């Protein structure tokens, strides 16, 4: 006889509500034209606010800016960080542990303070209010995911797998491309998605370095929510979620819960 884990069921339902509840509410709001108390569901549905949002230049530009910015920053960070992670995993060099630890240490400092000091430097370099200035700063948000998860993943690949390929005649580069990369793919995909999402939702750095010329989606969202038009904010929220959801679905092939957990040393 199987015993129904009643407590577990309650936990599952309440966790599901806590996680999905807000998301569902926001999605409902995005398609609601009229939704007043005491109605449980919107009384009038429509795409009115979607047309309103897309009709405005001030909305379209930040969306495109954000997507371009995030894609460039995440990809560049990956190109720099993944080989570095491989070095951390496979090579022994002095100061390795200290360096690896420094990436976490940077997270311990309040980000805002860090960005202020960077802004001072960037001001001298003329990078404030510049698209590439924001790209550089946003890459910082990715470093933790892009170094730690891949390092653990590379470390988790048995050296014999690479040695066997090398022994059979492959060059070091081909071993990396044909064996190491595919083996680490689940964790690499996880690190990419996590970094992408964290950059997309980054507010502080965009505000400090990008302002006033560069406006990103989260900045727009902040300014809109101050105007208290719930539907407009909801539409924007859904818009921000779309790229994340697409990325998640794409990477589902590679990404496993185990891959992510491995990244954090599990």
């Amino acid at each position, binding site marked *: 006889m199987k015993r129904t884990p009643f407590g577990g069921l309650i936990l599952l339902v309440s966790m599901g509500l806590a996680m999905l509840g807000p998301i569902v509410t926001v999605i409902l709001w995005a398609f609601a034209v009229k939704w007043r108390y005491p109605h449980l569901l919107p009384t009038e549905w429509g795409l009115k606010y979607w047309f309103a949002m897309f009709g405005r230049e001030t909305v379209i530009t930040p969306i495109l800016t954000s997507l371009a910015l995030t894609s460039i920053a995440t990809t560049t960070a990956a190109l720099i960080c993944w080989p570095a992670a491989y070095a951390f995993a496979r090579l022994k060099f002095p100061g390795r542990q200290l360096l690896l630890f420094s990436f976490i240490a940077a997270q311990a400092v309040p980000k805002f303070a860090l960005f202020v000091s960077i802004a001072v430097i960037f001001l001298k370099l003329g990078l404030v209010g510049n698209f590439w200035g924001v790209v550089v700063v946003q890459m910082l948000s990715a470093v933790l995911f892009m170094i730690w998860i891949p390092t653990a993943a590379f470390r988790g690949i*048995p050296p*014999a*797998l690479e*040695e*066997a*390929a*090398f*022994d*059979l*005649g*492959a*060059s070091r580069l*081909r071993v990396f491309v*044909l*064996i190491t990369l*595919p*083996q680490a*793919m689940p964790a690499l995909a996880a690190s990419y998605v996590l970094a992408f999402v964290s950059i997309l939702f980054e507010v502080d750095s965009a505000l400090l370095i990008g302002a006033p010329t560069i406006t990103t989606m989260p900045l727009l969202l902040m300014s809109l929510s101050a105007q208290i038009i719930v539907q407009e904010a909801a539409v924007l929220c859904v818009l921000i979620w779309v790229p994340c959801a697409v990325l998640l679905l794409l990477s589902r092939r590679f990404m496993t819960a185990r891959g992510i957990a491995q990244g954090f040393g599990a």
Partner: protein
Amino acid sequence: MLQIDSITKTYQGTPAVRDASFRVARGELVCLLGPSGCGKSTLLRIISGLTACDSGTVSIEGVDMTATQANRRPTAMVFQSHALWSHMNVAQNVGFGLRVRGLPKAEIAAKTAAVLDLVGLSAFAKRLPAELSGGQAQRVALARCLVVEPKVLLMDEPFSALDAHLRKGLREELKALQGRLDLTTIFVTHDQEEAMELADRIVVMQGGRVEQVGPPGALYQNPSTLGVAQFIGAMNTCTSNLRHSAVDWYGVTLRMPLPDGEVALLCRPEDLSIDPNGAAARVARVIDLGPVTKVNLITETGDLLTWTCPRDQAPDLGRVMTLLPRRLHAFRGGALMGLMEAPLPAQAQGATA
């Protein structure tokens, strides 16, 4: 074919391989045998090129390979952990070596199919490594090496992770395949039974040194060092003080015309025979192993003596028997001093004189 000369390797001050030299002829299967940590795997990795040695040379067919990287050496290695690539199917794993050599697709497919047929895994070409049993995985690992037609096949304890029954079957299979393809093979193992069964010659290693090289039977019958004698097969070992060409062996005095001093006396369990002038010992345990019976005896000196005999000659528990060695190996300082065939008890000889 393969020549290893004075290979030395030190890991952070600890010597792993010390001045190891031996040769392997074409088509020969040589086992590197020794306890774990004796340097046999390190030596194999040095031959493959995956580990660099501090000094010495490795040459294959007269060409010095010492400075050549692993991917440019005509060797291929089967790892203990099979080391198959989980993101490729069996055929892709096997074809890898040909793919990196830039062979056309059709040729890779043909050669891969032929080798898979050779190891009896044609039906598994599309499977992923995760869907294979341990024995199948190791056969794929072997096929992956065979397909590149290496001049020397290297195997690093390939069957250690498998269960005993399977291990035996794969051993037979490997031996047959190796003979058929005339493959020069170096096989690392810590299992002396495996080495005895497979090898044309065995290289016994201990503490990073090559102790003795020879055919399995010769190593068993005539070990040249105490280490080899104790590692290969069972031995009854006692130490005694040799004086005036006589030595005490479990309470009997045996004639032994060797220089005075401390000696280690070793005798195989099957080399004991019943003799009225022998050392008295009481039967403490009788173990029926099937083909033979192993008898543990306690001598008058309180030592354990092991005797193997045909099962119809197995004695009763508690019986006192007198035993003499038919062959007795004497070692001093780890080196062989002499091998006594049927050494005579001193009293018996005195009586006849």
